């Protein structure tokens, strides 16, 4: 009896010790996950997160990783492909825990500024000087205090993707270039018994893009630049933007159930509806063809029927009608990543990889040597618009950071539900900005 008791006591005691050891280790071991590389034996593992999780894009990135491994013996690329929203959530958690992946997608703007301030991301200015020079102006969005923290691999602009066949059937000959024409087109599509537009207002940001676009058309460039710097939204043009969105929602151009429609997950998402010919148009970024391809059985998306036109002009707008709303993705390297991670990112921007990237319509290449490789006529047209734009305004939620951007998106989504006024959007955005201090 006594022996058993003693044994049990000893056992529970050692359990306590083990647990205590686990507890203690957990605190310090925070950065173990991501930066596993760079140890002795020359064996390096690079963790890499991206959002090309379907179809051809996924296959291509698997190939790119394999090629890099082959050219760099001893280096293993541990790739994780995720759905976009999932990736954002996981990235936030990873950064917070201090074990971010070595190579990840960095969207720039306020988010990058936060990462830089917290010392989480690597300064690539000197490490990748050659590539930065090649990419030219597109690195601007990933520059904080004259240092470059990300190499953009795809920069695009937001515009309307449409089904050319449905436009023809509805008797629309020219894609609309003003909002007056746009409203006419909406009526024509409705008369032909079609749903004109899909919007993933369930995810909020696709709805918010409408407000951003109208603000871009109504606000002069310096007003927007100031707003990003000072978080001051008092200019009348922001109210105008809200009024335009209100008018658009009142015209009822959107798909059935748009308030709960997700942006791009599944065939009943906003992108899925366009891909399966349930709606005639959707306003989305440059990634749309790739997303649609992944949502159709034949992997073709809308194929030949896909057309694109930029956000139409508004009457009396102060903004440059050729300015575009856009943004893109850059490869960022986390602060404690092994040198091989930087090499990998450089490889990703090489002519070869960017050409393959462009040929598969995975995005809009930033490497100027391969712009001719964009085969899709709609994407080629988008590229032309991007390159002739006087400036490309970064998506507001990205530019302002998640706290202000999130409040802004929530308020705009409320307007889509008919529960916010133009003043509410400005008011809620301003109070979130003021709370930032």
């Amino acid at each position, binding site marked *: 009896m006594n022996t058993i008791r003693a044994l049990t*006591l000893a056992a529970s005691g050692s359990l306590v010790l083990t*647990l205590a050891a686990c507890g203690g280790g957990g605190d310090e071991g925070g950065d173990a996950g991501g930066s596993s590389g760079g140890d002795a034996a020359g064996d390096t593992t690079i963790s890499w997160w991206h959002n090309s999780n379907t179809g051809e894009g996924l296959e291509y990135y698997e190939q790119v990783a394999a090629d890099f491994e082959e050219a760099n013996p001893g280096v293993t690329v541990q790739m994780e492909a995720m759905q976009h929203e999932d990736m954002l959530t996981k990235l936030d958690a990873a950064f917070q825990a201090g074990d971010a992946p070595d190579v990840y997608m960095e969207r720039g703007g306020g988010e990058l500024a936060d990462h830089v301030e917290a010392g989480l991301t690597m300064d690539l200015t000197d490490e990748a000087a050659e590539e930065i020079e090649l990419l030219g102006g597109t690195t601007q969005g990933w520059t904080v205090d004259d240092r470059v923290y990300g190499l953009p691999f795809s920069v695009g602009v937001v515009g309307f993707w449409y089904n050319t066949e449905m436009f023809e059937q509805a008797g629309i000959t020219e894609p609309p270039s003003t909002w007056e024409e746009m409203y006419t087109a909406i009526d024509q599509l409705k008369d032909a018994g079609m749903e004109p537009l899909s919007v993933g207002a369930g995810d909020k940001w696709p709805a918010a893009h409408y407000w951003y676009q109208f603000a871009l058309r109504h606000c002069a460039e310096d007003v927007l630049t100031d707003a990003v710097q000072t978080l001051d939204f008092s200019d009348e043009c922001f109210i105008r933007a809200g009024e335009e969105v209100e008018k658009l929602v009142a015209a009822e151009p959107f798909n059935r159930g748009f308030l*709960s429609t997700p942006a791009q997950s599944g065939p009943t998402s906003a992108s899925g509806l366009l891909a399966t010919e349930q709606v005639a148009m959707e306003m989305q970024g440059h990634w749309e063809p790739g997303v649609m391809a992944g949502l159709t059985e034949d992997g073709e998306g809308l194929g030949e029927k896909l057309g694109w036109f930029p956000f139409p002009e508004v009457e009396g707008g102060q903004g440059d009608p050729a300015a575009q709303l856009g943004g893109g993705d850059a490869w960022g390297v986390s602060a404690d990543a092994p040198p091989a991670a930087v090499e990998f990112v450089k490889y990703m921007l090489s002519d070869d990889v960017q050409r393959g990237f462009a040929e598969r319509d995975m995005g809009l290449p930033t490497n100027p040597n391969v712009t001719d490789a964009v085969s899709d006529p709609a994407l080629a047209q988008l590229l032309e618009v991007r390159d002739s734009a006087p400036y490309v305004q970064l998506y507001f939620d990205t530019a302002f950071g998640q*706290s202000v951007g999130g409040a802004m998106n929530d308020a705009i989504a409320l307007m889509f539900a008919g529960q916010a006024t133009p003043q509410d959007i400005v008011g809620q955005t301003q109070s979130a900005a003021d709370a930032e201090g």
Partner: protein
Amino acid sequence: MTVTSAPPRGATDPPAGRGSRPAGGRRRDWRMAAEIAGFTAPALLLFGVFVVWPILRAVQFSLFRWNGFGPLVDFVGLQNYVAVLSDDVFTGAVGHNLIIVVASILIQLPLGLAIALLLNRRMRGQGVLRTIIFVPYVLSEVIAGVVWFQLLQPGRGVIEAMLGTVGLEGPFQGFLGTPSLALPTLVVVLTWKYVGLAVLLFLAGLQGVPEELAEAAQIDGASWWQTQWRVTIPLLGPTIRMWAFLSMIGSLQLFDMVWILTGGGPANATTTMATFLVNEGTKRQNYGIAAAASVVLFVIALVMAVLYQRFVLRRDTADADVPRGVR
């Protein structure tokens, strides 16, 4: 713990009453204390690391403005609490949680009870029926959520197609997209998901109701209905009260199903306290605000749990309390 380890000792030793300790008592007390400490330490440690420590950290976070990166430097006192409690979205969320608490109990209690009483009778296919009722509860909440999300697709989903065959048309925004319908729809899905648990618990409780009592009632001339109402259900009281407690806590902390079905939308019509704090925290990176909301949620759940224990569960747990005199 003390109760279970005491009897064997009491059987061999004379009761160690206060002030009349036998000579060897001191050593034995020390040993007993060490034993108790040894056995409870692992559990206490886990409790400390995974319950107490996170709560303390949340309280700490709630006093700072913090975006999730870097050190806590921007102390703002109770400002986050003011922001949370004066936020219409949060107060709306508290309201939604309370509606779900009340609706869950009001709907699932009679429904679960009725199904349990029916399934408690001898019949063909009893096992199969019990399984069918219980399956939704076993399904992962996320999987069930995705399935319901697809069924409820506006205009294209199975449910609206079924409505269409009888000439009805679903709302333009769909059941999940119409602000006034989203919460009732959520309650329906939650009922489908959780009524199985109520049935299972009630069935287990019914096994503890002696058949003789029902027989005696029948001999006295009680109808089936009277037997259930006057004999079986009152004896099921402890089970029902415990189930209601679990249901209440679950409803207060509700997150998964809402997040999958609506994400708290449309127009914040289904936001719960948990979705509010996740949205503020991981989406907007206002971790101070999220922490304050989580503390408020904790306090609300704790107060409701303590009050329920004190006033409703008291007589059920009273029997378990061993009178002090025994030691």
